């Protein structure tokens, strides 16, 4: 069983996220980290591999060269190999361009299962898997909170707005897991030491046979036109309870005319 886990480097949770006014892209100059939601996908891949007792877990990502640092966290957790699509020409890719490039890398790997995390913490996007599945012409199940492998197929239990669905799909398939599916393991010291020597491959658009006109901004179909400040949400007030918090809440509600 070969499992590919698609992951992304995002700005570190402690970093102040901003969009660069000149490039109109997210400023990625600060500290980066593995998207926390992706750790659930890596964890699930490792569990499936452990359960079947054989196979390979390869993490696949797209980003600047230094995103390898974040991929190493997945290797430290136990993934076998990392592939990073890194190319100046891929910068600024939207969903259309990203899904095309990522699908090319996945076609090269020919995994039985492609896993995604629930969303990326930087773009608030929660869509990439469906576009990738369409490019690969494979079934897709999203928001999976319980994943069971069978002979040649898998079953995912997932939560929607209406309750729990159970969906079965033949392999190869694409699955996006919810962050409630597992608790990602912490990399052990041995894992961290071992990660450095695991295979880490950097590939270019040319390596994947992606036409430069189909990647990056050239291959994108959406654009950012302008940035502005959001309308103020009124004043946000924060108080420490000094014993009179309940009274202060009542006063606040009365002031807002929310108490009759």
């Amino acid at each position, binding site marked *: 069983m070969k499992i590919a886990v698609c992951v992304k480097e995002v700005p570190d949770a402690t970093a102040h*996220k*901003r*969009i660069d006014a000149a490039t109109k892209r997210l400023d990625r100059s600060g500290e980066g980290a593995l998207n926390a939601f992706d750790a659930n996908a890596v964890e699930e891949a490792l569990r499936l591999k452990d359960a079947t007792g054989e196979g390979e877990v390869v993490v696949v990502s797209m980003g600047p060269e230094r995103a390898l640092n974040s991929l190493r966290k997945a290797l430290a957790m136990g993934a076998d190999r990392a592939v990073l699509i890194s190319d100046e020409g891929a910068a600024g890719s939207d*969903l*259309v361009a990203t*899904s*095309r490039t990522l699908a090319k890398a996945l076609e090269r790997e020919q995994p039985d299962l492609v896993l995604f995390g629930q*969303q990326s*913490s*930087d*773009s*608030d*996007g*929660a*869509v*990439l898997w*469906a*576009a990738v599945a*369409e490019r690969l012409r494979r*079934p*897709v199940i*999203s*928001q999976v909170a319980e994943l069971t492998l069978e002979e040649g197929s898998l079953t995912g239990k997932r*939560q*929607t*707005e*209406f*309750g*729990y*669905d*159970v*969906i079965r*799909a033949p392999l190869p*398939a694409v699955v996006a897991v919810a962050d*409630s599916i597992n608790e990602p393991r912490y990399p052990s010291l041995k894992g961290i030491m071992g990660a450095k020597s695991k295979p880490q491959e950097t590939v270019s658009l040319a390596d994947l046979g992606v036409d430069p006109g189909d990647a990056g901004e050239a291959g994108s*179909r*959406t*654009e*950012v*036109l*302008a*940035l*502005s*400040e*959001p309308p103020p*949400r009124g*004043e*946000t*007030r*924060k*108080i420490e*309870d000094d014993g009179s*918090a*309940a009274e202060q*809440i*009542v006063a*606040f509600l009365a002031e*807002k005319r*929310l*108490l009759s």
Partner: protein
Amino acid sequence: MSILIFLEHHANELQKGSLAVLSKAASLGAGEVAGVVVGSGVEGLASQAAAFGAATVYVADDPKLEAPLPQPRVDAIAQLVADKGFETVLFAQSILAADIASGLAARLDAGLNWQLTDLSAVGGELVGKQSALGDSVLVDVGWRSTPRLGLFRSGAFDPVEQPAAGTVERFEPQLQEHSLAAEMVEQAHAEESGPSIEDADVIVAGGRGLGEPEKFALVEDLAKALGGAVAATRAVVDAGWYPYSAQVGQTGKSVAPTLYVACGISGAIQHKVGMQGSKTIVAINKDPNAPIFEFADLGVVGDLHQIVPRLTELVRARKA
């Protein structure tokens, strides 16, 4: 400039969010607006939808389309776009809609913008407003080619009934092999208990910070005093503390009450997307760094076990 709106339905009911997007599209006055309903036994829903601003509602009615799976819907909408030449396809955010929109983006090489809170027609072009980076920035987004695809955040608009109802037209989508590969074994039917939180004017919600399931009584008492409904986070629903029908968030209900009181809720993105449309948010949490304090109108750092019972008492006294 013709616009198609995906009309989602569940348990034989059209979803308010997609009707709202339909009404919004009609209000742009930027060309013909149509809707599409996909499912089994849904022709009646199509005629209902026709009253919300669609000149035509296309309906694909087939037992094979009964399960709300995204991929056959990509086939259906792609076919409509090809046959009728729609230049824009819009969706109200949902788990199903996001998967369809994204699949469609790949199928048609069409640009998809998400987290849209508004849309306007500017000189023959459409410009969307996107709320980004945890609502810290508003981005004007555009499309470089047609068809344009857009996913609207829930609660962005309200449905408006129109005097003239449109017509219903059936079509037969050709379904692709990979689109039929996934199979719904068991479909979600949430049991409703009590009044729906989606229509409540006041909501009091509880999260992990309550400490134990019994403490939901604090939340219930306050809700009762305020004349509101009770909601819960995914974490506590997963833990079995409260029923799923009360869950607010990405995989629960989206609510936009006048007042939302969050008790022991950190405000993780999964929860935030379901309640950020609330008019006034009051949060009580002992962790001063909880993300909810970034968007609560009044944030109280303190022990909810002390504050909430006292608050309930004061509200009761005031109303008595």
